[in-house]
């Protein structure tokens, strides 16, 4: 199996005045070459911190990667000196952020920012860099790229800005793209457009995508595998079909039932949307057993006492839950 990224037992904690927040608490996941992996979970479950840990961008202090391994093609990123990490950032692993509005520097044109990405990692001439930047803008379907490249960010719409960010992320043909809620800030019609472009291009250059989102529809449509996180831990992982048709963890099941379906309105009487009762436990003070125990609809006595072990349901489909074990 050819893994681009292999995270093993990653722990990233935040040491604050109020105590230690275990934002990522023993996460293991992997991405195969060219694969799209959906990383889903509620806000604050550690999805983004996992992505930031990969690039070593966790703000320190207060954040600290306590233990674990992050292997990029077998090379442990956590052991590398900062200088080498910088060479990897943007070149072999690039990141697309959630907010296209603020991820571009308002003081510079699109051209300046795209060329900066090229000049940081490649020794090429200005003319060639500009040609590549324009070609990339054309690929992300920006109309009249020769003209728009001289625009400032405020002259572009939100969807265009996000496409510029995608162009910037793909410009150096990375092996891995961390897309942290890449379309959350966009409206629905633009979302589909932007995602289409992202998938098409990553297919072309053979990059893997870690797609971080809380939008399950998006995952169902595009990802091959899904990892579900809860309170800093992986609770279930598996191929998309297995997760959507045969979810075993009560949290995953809850997530799936909380998605509003357009058909529910007509025909049958209106249904109230399912909600997972309770709130995410404080990361400062996790319950001793299963982190989901306080919200679980059908807990067993064992759940309060002991952390569940990961078990295989079918090939590639794992769940961390005592129920059914």
């Amino acid at each position, binding site marked *: 199996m050819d893994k681009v990224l292999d995270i093993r037992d990653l722990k990233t904690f935040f040491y604050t005045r109020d105590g230690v927040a275990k934002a990522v608490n023993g996460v293991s996941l992997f991405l195969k070459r060219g694969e799209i992996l959906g990383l889903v979970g509620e806000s604050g479950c550690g999805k983004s911190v996992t992505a930031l840990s990969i690039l070593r961008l966790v703000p320190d202090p207060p954040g600290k990667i306590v233990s674990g391994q992050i292997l990029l093609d077998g090379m442990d990123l956590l052991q590398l000196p900062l200088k080498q990490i910088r060479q990897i*950032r943007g070149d072999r692993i690039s990141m697309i952020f959630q907010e296209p509005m603020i991820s571009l520097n308002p003081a510079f044109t699109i051209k300046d920012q795209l060329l900066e990405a090229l000049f940081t990692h490649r020794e090429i001439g200005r003319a060639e860099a500009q040609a590549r930047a324009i070609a990339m803008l054309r690929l992300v379907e920006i109309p009249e790229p020769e003209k728009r490249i001289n625009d400032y960010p405020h002259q572009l719409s939100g969807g265009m800005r996000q496409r510029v960010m995608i162009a910037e992320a793909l410009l150096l043909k990375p092996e891995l793209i961390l897309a942290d809620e890449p379309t959350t800030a966009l409206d629905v019609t633009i979302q589909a457009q932007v995602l289409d472009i992202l998938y098409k291009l990553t297919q072309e250059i053979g990059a893997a995508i870690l797609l971080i989102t809380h939008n399950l529809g998006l995952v169902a449509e595009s990802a091959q595998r899904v990892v579900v996180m809860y309170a800093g831990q992986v609770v279930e992982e598996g191929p998309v079909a297995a997760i959507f048709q045969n979810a075993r963890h009560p949290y995953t099941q809850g997530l799936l039932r909380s998605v509003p379906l357009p058909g529910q309105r007509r025909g049958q009487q209106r249904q109230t949307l399912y909600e997972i009762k309770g709130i995410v436990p404080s990361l400062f003070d996790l319950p001793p057993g299963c982190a989901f125990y306080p919200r679980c609809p059908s807990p067993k006595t064992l759940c309060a006492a002991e952390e569940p072990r990961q078990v295989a349901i079918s090939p590639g489909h794992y769940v961390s839950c005592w129920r059914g074990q």
Partner: protein
Amino acid sequence: MAWRRLFEHRLGMIGLVVILGNILLAILAPWIASDPLKVDVANREAFPSREFFFGTDEYGRDIFSRVIYGTRISLYISLLSVAVASIFGVAIGAVAGYYGGLTDNILMRFMDAIMSFPAILLAIGIMAVLGGHLFNVVIALGFVYIPRFARIIRGSVLSLKEKGFVEASLAMGNSDLIIIWRHILPNCTAPLIVQATVSLAYAILAEASLSFLGLGAPPPAPSWGNILSDARNFMLDAPWMTVFPGIAITLAVLGFNLFGDALRDVLDPRLK
């Protein structure tokens, strides 16, 4: 957009005209004025006339020429000292704001220590140590004005470093230095320009005060403070000796203040 609003700012434009007038006078001094140091015993303390527009002083030196040449000294010192202050202030403020923590604390407490002295008093102290020389005035005033630049830049950097494009630039593999230089400082220019313009007014005033106290450009250099200082003893007999350099100082300071306020009105988004 901002340019048009600036041009429509009436007081600001008055300030700009005064500033440009000052600069023009400084450049054209040799053609407008005669030798500011020429002693004319026959015409001591002469009343303003067609020959001597602003009158003469107790040595018969033409006050008009001295005031015009004073513009040069005044601009030279204020521009250079503000340049010195802004270069060091921006560097210190950017490093303190970007790195935060202990670095920030040490640098900013040092800035607080400088600020705890009244500016003019500290400048007097420095001049007393360095000795009266035009360039020493630049050093003294430059040093005294560093903290106000450092504080303003630090404030801007603190808010800018949380912006998405800084994180995006880090994720792209850029070093701290490039991020500060390319992504943070260009977004700090507005407050910097405002602060620099206002500081120019202070620097002009401070230079005049130092010269007046005999700690600035050594006499007989025709700085405005020196002219005033000479004129002090003749205030009642020959009021023109004090009035004209006084007007020159007032106008210059007013010009920079008005223009600085206009820039603030135009550039500061919080005032919109």
